[in-house]
């Protein structure tokens, strides 16, 4: 019997044969039910009751059957940075009055809000110190300092909330929302600004999405033509002229050559090898000639930068 839940169960009951008719079944069940309910009522009415205009009120004991919770237990908030510091230093909190006496005006003013004590904006005169520069505006400086302090405080508050969120104890009315996805890698800096040339090319790039490749689009005044106007496909002539070797045959031969050369690794391209060899030889001969006929003029000649890739590799 669980009084807290007003529940009673009878484990001893056992139906030897389930009554066939519905009516019999309900009757039997209600009989058993009545017994149990009477037992609970006896226990409940036996509890000490207090009188109330609505009726007698009894104090129920806490329920014995444990049922699972709806939500997790609230976790205690981790102490903030200031709280830790204050605890270490032994600084205690003192309750502050809402009204404070203002020395300047000699009246009682409120601490926070409209017409408050020690307002930063109310200072009429700031005396110049020796450390001040002549061109500086002290009022705006004070404003900027206050703004900085406020920003710092906001940052600290965010850090404290992040710590609380990590411990799973974020206050219920606060949500931390990410406003931007974290950027990782070398491109973590500010997004690159589009250069003037890029911007000029953008319209042309977008125009290539049309069916005619942007060839017949109206141009704005001052807009330059796209670099490669129109489409990129080249169709072979339907009727071939005399004297030309079959272009279609050339095209297919070119494709085949490329495929074959890619697939056969390690095999020597004879023509290429021969030309490379010849070129090297000629260079050597040239050098030898130069060495033989070395003169001051040749020495003073500026060194020719060779545009070949292999030379770059050496450096």
């Amino acid at each position: 019997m669980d009084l807290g839940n007003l529940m009673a169960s009878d484990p001893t009951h056992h139906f030897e044969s389930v009554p066939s008719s519905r009516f019999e079944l309900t009757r039997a069940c209600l009989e058993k039910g009545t017994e149990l309910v009477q037992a609970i009522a006896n226990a409940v009415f036996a509890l000490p009751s207090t009188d109330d205009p609505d009726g007698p009120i009894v104090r129920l004991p806490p329920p014995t059957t444990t049922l699972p919770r709806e939500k997790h237990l609230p976790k205690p908030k981790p102490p903030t940075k200031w709280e830790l510091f204050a605890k270490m230093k032994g600084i205690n909190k003192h309750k502050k009055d809402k009204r404070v006496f203002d020395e300047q005006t000699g009246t009682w003013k409120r601490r926070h809000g409209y017409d408050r004590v020690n307002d930063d904006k109310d200072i009429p005169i700031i005396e110049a110190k020796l450390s001040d520069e002549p061109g500086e505006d002290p009022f705006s400086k004070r404003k900027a300092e206050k703004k900085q302090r406020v920003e710092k405080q906001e940052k600290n508050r965010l850090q404290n909330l992040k710590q609380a969120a990590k411990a799973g104890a974020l206050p219920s009315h606060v949500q931390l929302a990410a406003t931007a996805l974290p950027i990782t890698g070398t491109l973590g800096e500010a997004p690159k600004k589009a250069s003037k040339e890029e911007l000029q090319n953008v319209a042309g790039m977008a125009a290539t999405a049309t069916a005619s490749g942007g060839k017949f689009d109206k141009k704005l005044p001052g807009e330059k033509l796209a670099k490669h106007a129109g489409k990129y496909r080249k169709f072979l002539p339907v009727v071939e002229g005399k004297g030309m070797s079959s272009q279609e045959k050339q095209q297919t031969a070119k494709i085949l050559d490329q495929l074959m050369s890619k697939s056969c690794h390690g095999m020597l391209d004879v023509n290429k090898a021969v030309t490379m060899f010849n070129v090297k030889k000629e260079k050597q001969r040239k050098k030898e000639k130069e060495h033989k006929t070395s003169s001051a003029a040749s020495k003073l000649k500026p060194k020719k930068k060779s545009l070949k890739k292999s030379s770059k590799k050496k450096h």
Partner: protein
Amino acid sequence: MLVMPTSRNHLMLRRQRRRRLPLTMLKIKTPKTQRAKREVEKRAPKLVESGKKTLILHGTKTSDVLNTVLTQIYHLKRDNAVKYTKKNENIRPFESGGETSLEFFSLKTDCSLFVFGSHSKKRPNNLVLGRMFDHHIYDLVEVGVDNFRPMESFEYDKKLTPRIGSKPFFAFVGEGFESVEELKHLKEVLLDLFRGEVVENLNLAGIDHVFVCTALSSSTVFFTHCALRLKRSGTAIPRMELVEVGPSMDLVVRRHRLPNDSLKKEAMKTTNGQPKKKIKNVSSDVLQGKIGKIYIPDQKVGGIALSNDVKGLKRERREARKTKVVGENEAKKRKTASK
């Protein structure tokens, strides 16, 4: 306000520009109105929890019987239940992916109990009773409804109708509720579903109704709802009489899913071990009731300056003016006299 462009100002501006894009930016969101704040705080996890809310919905296909069952359960739990009328195709509580919609609804309506009805050839008149922990599914019991009799089919004295929100009695008859695991689970879920709020003080005049569950076999439970009539008996304790009032049905347990152990441990954690906060300074008296003491520190009457809004100043000023006038008159008289 004019800001003189000096070298220092430029530096500050440049620093600000660089700071504008940190790697992760988080924003603190708080509710802007007090009402929203109160709603959010109502839904926050508490040490001692109040009653659970129920979400009643149905799947793609429902039968007539099932519709009536769902509406009658909703009527039984009117104050703390939410009933959805649309059909939900993508909710399949027992499948791993089919619970996301349920969890979303639970989050939005703040309901931790749900009753999901569906009807198919394989499982006719199917009810899935489930519970949530932290808006994720905790456990489920799938039950089929047989021999349903709605509330309207019962005839009884209208004065006996139980009122919404009154705390019900529970009677579980049968050894099956202790021995068979599925029936044990069903017992727990039914208790949770119909219990209402956990209260400390019960008004004995408000005892209205009882839920009677009888284990007919190892998989069937006869569930019925009766009103209580308290009859006068010789002793102070009244005699109970059950009058069948509410829906009655046979529940056939089909499937059930128990929570995994770690989740169960997490959900069963209570604060019973910790000492309760002691309320200081409050005592109760037989004659006066609840009394408390207020301590006022000594006022430094001489030290504080006079505030503007003290009414007593008026009388002082008035009297001061009077004496001044009298004094002036006297001075005049003296002058005239001296002349």
